[in-house]
């Protein structure tokens, strides 16, 4: 019993690692598919042959593909991410502060969004088909159909332009104190919270309703148990697995959704860096950012799977 559980988790871990490996291969291959090669991309069309050769040597382009891949992978694992093609700065330096900014933004949003959405989701599930439920369902459906940037701009219009409560540009620098930081990220956090709460709440509601229609809930009710007890003892433990899943998947979504929001609020985070680098075709930076985003996403999904295996005995014995 214990062993089968361990094997299952190990399998899942192996799949996660495999995915990360394939992602890194794909990212390197992508660069290989460039017309010409990286040396040409750096120096441009009119480079001399000598200069090209020198750069190729520096970047190990003379060595075969698989050797280069492992050299690159080794560098990455030592946090040596190469240098930017545009301004020759170390990618690791470029990324460091931005990564912490992005994490700050995402975690602020998560801390607010998770309790709200679970609470609302539970209420909507308990009082389903009531007016409250209908209002919430309609509101969240609308929020989901609306692009993130519209939510962001509406918030700017209301809170920044009309009432002047929060700044519409979220500039932060490393020497900001916590309070100033929180003030600066207020609007992007609100945007993210609105978008994520809509998703999370809907899924939480669906998960709880799914549990509430089970026969054992009916049995508990019929034997005269109090409503609150039924929910605490029978519904919640069984709904826990899907809810954990929902939360983690939405955290993963948060990591990606951050990109658009950062651009709207000109927030100096990783997402903005990624978008900038894509339009400048600054490949080392794109590779690094892409890898960070992708691995965070994969890790979170992995966590979701493992947690739900742990929380749900039935999943431990796949047929």
């Amino acid at each position, binding site marked *: 019993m214990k062993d089968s559980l361990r094997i299952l988790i190990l399998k899942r871990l192996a*799949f*996660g690692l*495999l*995915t990360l490996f*394939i*992602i890194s291969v794909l*990212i390197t291959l*992508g*660069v290989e*598919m*460039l017309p010409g090669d990286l040396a040409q991309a750096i120096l441009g069309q009119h480079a001399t042959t000598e200069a090209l050769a020198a750069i190729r040597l520096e970047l190990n382009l003379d060595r075969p593909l698989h050797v280069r891949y492992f050299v690159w992978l080794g560098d990455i694992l030592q946090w040596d991410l190469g240098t930017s093609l545009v301004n020759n700065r170390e990618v690791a330096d470029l990324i460091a502060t931005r990564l912490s900014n992005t994490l700050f933004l995402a975690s602020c949003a998560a801390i607010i969004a998770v309790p709200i959405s679970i609470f609302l989701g539970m209420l909507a599930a308990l009082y389903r088909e009531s007016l409250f439920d209908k209002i919430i369902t309609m509101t969240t*459906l*609308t929020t989901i*159909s*609306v*692009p*993130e*940037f*519209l939510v962001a*701009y*509406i918030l*700017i*219009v209301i809170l*920044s*332009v009309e009432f002047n409560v929060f700044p*519409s540009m979220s500039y932060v620098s490393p020497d900001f104190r916590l309070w100033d930081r929180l003030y600066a990220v207020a609007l992007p956090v609100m945007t993210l919270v609105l978008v994520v709460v809509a998703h999370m709440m809907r899924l939480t509601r669906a998960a709880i309703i799914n549990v509430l229609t089970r026969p054992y809930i009916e049995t508990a009710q019929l034997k005269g148990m109090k409503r609150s007890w039924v929910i605490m003892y029978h519904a919640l433990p069984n709904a826990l697995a899907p809810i954990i899943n929902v939360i983690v998947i939405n955290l*993963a979504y948060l*990591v*990606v959704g951050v*990109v*658009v929001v950062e*651009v*709207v609020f000109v927030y100096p985070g990783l997402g903005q860096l*990624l*978008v900038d*680098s*894509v*339009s400048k*075709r*600054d*490949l080392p930076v*794109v*590779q690094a950012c*892409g890898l960070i*985003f*992708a691995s965070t*996403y*994969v890790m979170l*999904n992995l966590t979701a799977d493992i947690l739900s295996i742990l929380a749900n005995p039935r999943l431990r014995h796949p047929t």
Partner: protein
Amino acid sequence: MGFLIIAINLFALSFAPVLTPFTETEIVGKVWEPGIWATDCSAEVVKSDGPCWAQLNDNRMGGKSWLGTDHIGRDLLTRLLYGARNTISLALIITGLSFIVGMAFGFLAATMRGWVDQVVSRVVDILMAFPTLIFALIVLSVAGTSIPVLIVVIALLDTTRVFRLSRAVAMDITVMEYVEGARLRGEGIMWVMWREILPNTLPPLVAEFGLRFCFVFLFISALSFLGLGLQPPTADWGSMVQENSVAISFGVYNPLIPAAAIAFLTIGINLVVDWFLRKAAGLREEY
């Protein structure tokens, strides 16, 4: 309600050139001229003939800019109509493509089972483990931003989702007796897929088409908004929002119009999908 919204959009899509006096990239007036809502209706401006809104100042091209102008003085309504044309047709092409490929592979995996199913499913698993926006951004950075690249990338990402659904739905059908009967009759795989599985899987797939279309549409808009989708001067709702976003800080709300148009269309489609699903479910209850 949902149908009305879709109809309006299709109308705009088909008749864009007829509906407006300007062309897509023509500069017709000053920067960020306000639209009709800002027409000054106080007594001295209003002439005696016609209602107040008709008195919107003619701009120098001799037409009226109902919704005002954008950051370099192009007519917003015109760009909105052409944008509908570009974005919606692009999204339709992509969704169509991903459905053809995704359904073909999904049905194939469900009918053949065995190693075909295994291989395709694992590839899809890996693609789905990758965050879509990041995947698209990386590919676009390597291949550059052009319409064909855009179509291929988004269609590929979307195909994985279509594959999952069509495989799951087809799995249920392939175990039915009539499919077995057809196979015993000696029908080929193509025939089984086309004549037995396709008609029976249609309702959920049609509903999915609507949802996927919304997803693709929002995705293109997000990419364009990031400046990596359709390139200027082509009109696109996402990039229109981005181009004009500076205006918001000055209290000019023109950029909200295309953003609202995006939301309007996706909500409309969601409503229709909801209605369709309820109808499909209702029919089943009657049997």
